[in-house]
């Protein structure tokens, strides 16, 4: 895992913080005549990534999910994910539907304690899906988000065989009416993108925003001052299948 960075040591982050402070009163930044970038005031929101600039390796985006807060039967995160990403197909065989995020119900065999949690791509630091992809379509961005390049995925499904979380799906049918920000395609493999299009705009993933219980916390695992890093430092958290040493970006609390 990348060593935590000293607060303020990231020049880009410092610059954006200074710029943000300077224009906070105005609520927007002028980046070109007639073109404005709206300032995002949400706590722990992602930094805005300029179009054409690379993702920063100093950042490691992650999620902390508090299974203790995840309400039984609630599917708001799934609904929000599907709406945001245009995952709308309902096939006769539900096993052929894309599963970007799903709820798993757990019953502890020792005491019968019930827990529910959302399961999605765990955005591993050492992702098996990336290792096995023959064309390199399965990739990890510098900021830790694991994605599929829809232009080079050939639909071999080897990544689906390799994923220990069953987090990947093949698009089994031709698609129409897609969200332009989230390109999908028949015959390609896909999975949770951590709402990368929102993160790059400085927003949090749709599932996080939709959770009425506040059970999901999004942020930079590398930034010790972030809420997610502080929480992980202060409460016991779990990485699912930690025996595989994949160093997931998604962690669970209350398991």
């Amino acid at each position, binding site marked *: 895992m990348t060593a935590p960075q000293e607060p303020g040591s990231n020049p880009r982050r410092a610059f954006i913080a200074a710029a943000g402070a300077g224009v906070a009163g105005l609520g927007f930044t002028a980046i070109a005549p007639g073109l404005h970038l709206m300032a995002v005031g949400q706590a722990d929101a992602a930094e805005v990534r300029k179009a054409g600039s690379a993702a920063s390796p100093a950042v490691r985006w992650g999620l902390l999910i508090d299974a203790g807060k995840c309400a039984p039967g609630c599917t708001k995160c799934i609904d929000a994910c599907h709406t945001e990403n245009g995952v709308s197909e309902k*096939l006769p*065989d*539900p*096993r*052929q*539907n*894309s*599963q970007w995020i*799903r*709820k*798993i*119900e*757990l*019953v*502890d*065999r*020792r005491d019968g304690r019930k*827990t529910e949690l959302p*399961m999605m791509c765990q955005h591993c630091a050492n992702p*098996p899906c*990336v*290792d*096995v*992809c*023959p*064309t*390199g*379509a399965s990739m990890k961005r510098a900021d830790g988000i694991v994605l599929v390049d829809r232009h*080079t*995925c*050939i*639909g*071999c*499904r*080897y990544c*689906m*065989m*390799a*994923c*220990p*979380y*069953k987090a*990947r*799906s*093949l*698009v*089994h*049918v*031709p698609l129409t009416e897609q969200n332009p920000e989230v390109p999908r*395609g*028949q*015959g*390609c*493999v896909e999975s949770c993108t951590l709402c990368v299009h929102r993160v790059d705009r400085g927003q949090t993933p749709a599932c996080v925003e939709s959770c009425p219980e506040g059970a999901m916390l999004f942020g930079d695992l590398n930034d010790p001052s972030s809420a997610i890093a502080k929480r992980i430092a202060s409460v016991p958290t779990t990485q*699912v*299948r930690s025996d*595989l040493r994949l160093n997931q970006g998604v962690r669970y609390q209350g*398991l």
Partner: protein
Amino acid sequence: MMLNPRHEEGFFYLLAAIGGLVSAVGIGAALYMEHSGHVVTGMNNQIVWGLPHVVAIFLIVAASGVLNVASMGSVFGRKLYKPRAPLSGLLALAMISGGLAVIMLDLGRADRIIVAATHFNPTSVFGWNVILYPVFYGVVAVYLWTMMERRMHPWMKVAGFATFIWRIVLTTGTGSIFAFLVARQAYGTALLAPMFIIMSFCWGLAVFLVVQSTMYAWNGLTLPPLVLQRMKNLLATFVAAVLYFTIVLHLVNAYFAKNIAFEYFILFDSEFAGMFWIGQILIGTLLPLALLFNPATAAKSLWVNVAALLVIVGAYFQLYVFIIGGQAFPLDMFPGYDVKSTFMDGMVDHYSASLPELLLALGGIGIAFTMTTIGVRILHFLPQDDFAEIEAATSATD
């Protein structure tokens, strides 16, 4: 029985036409899948590889194994196998073509196959295979050339050795597709690489025996008893070796507490248990061993061929249990918990192949069959035994 030349020619065209038709139907099925999406298959997001992969992997593994016949002659100096080397090379090319066609046509985006050649990920076993397969074609083609062109004969041993090395590497690559998977209990063991090699020896030789006998019968010849005896002994050895690896694989798995549930599932408590015990062990292993070792049957070409056919049938059962059964068992993400979800977590999945994927799989066999049928017709692949030389060599080495 020797066919009348006119009938013989007509029969050849009939066989080639049947093979071509099966291949064309397979390609048509692939186009239908490409057009409609994989929704028309029985595969889903839990069982992601299905019947096409079972057939394709059989063809690819057997393709490299059938070359063992050539290697026995060129690398290990067994004279009995030398006249059989050209046929073994042809079968290798035919079967790998059928297998690769199925794998490529089953891709979600088969139209992007060129991307696999232009984008290479060095950490991917699939990526390695993208290099291993074309080189295999090249090496076997050169080997065939050195055998069939008199002026190239001096290079035959070198080409044979290179082919032998490459086919070992290739099958290691095929076994490693599964050996490198950490996610599922059925896979992720280094044992699979050598096990696939011995499986290839076994299945390749079984295919060779059946094709060779068919060619001899077609030409009104009988396989010489010495050849039959040598090859059936070799087949029996390979069948026993596959059984040995199977036992070790399951014993090791069952020894690990985390894999006991999977072993119980695959061996005793699933639709795959019957396929394992009856299909793989009884039909594919014990019956062939009995036929190959029983003096009453072992000396008869018919029964040796029946044994070889049973080995091939058992191989399909083995791969079905391994590939489909391995995916049907739920992933163990939360040890100590009972798990359920809307996506088969904690549940055994069920797979049944749809017609298009069955036709695609058969299309791969059709391609291999057609290439073999036309190849043996156009070129001179019937083994030409010089028995005086073989007898002399055999008595010298024995």
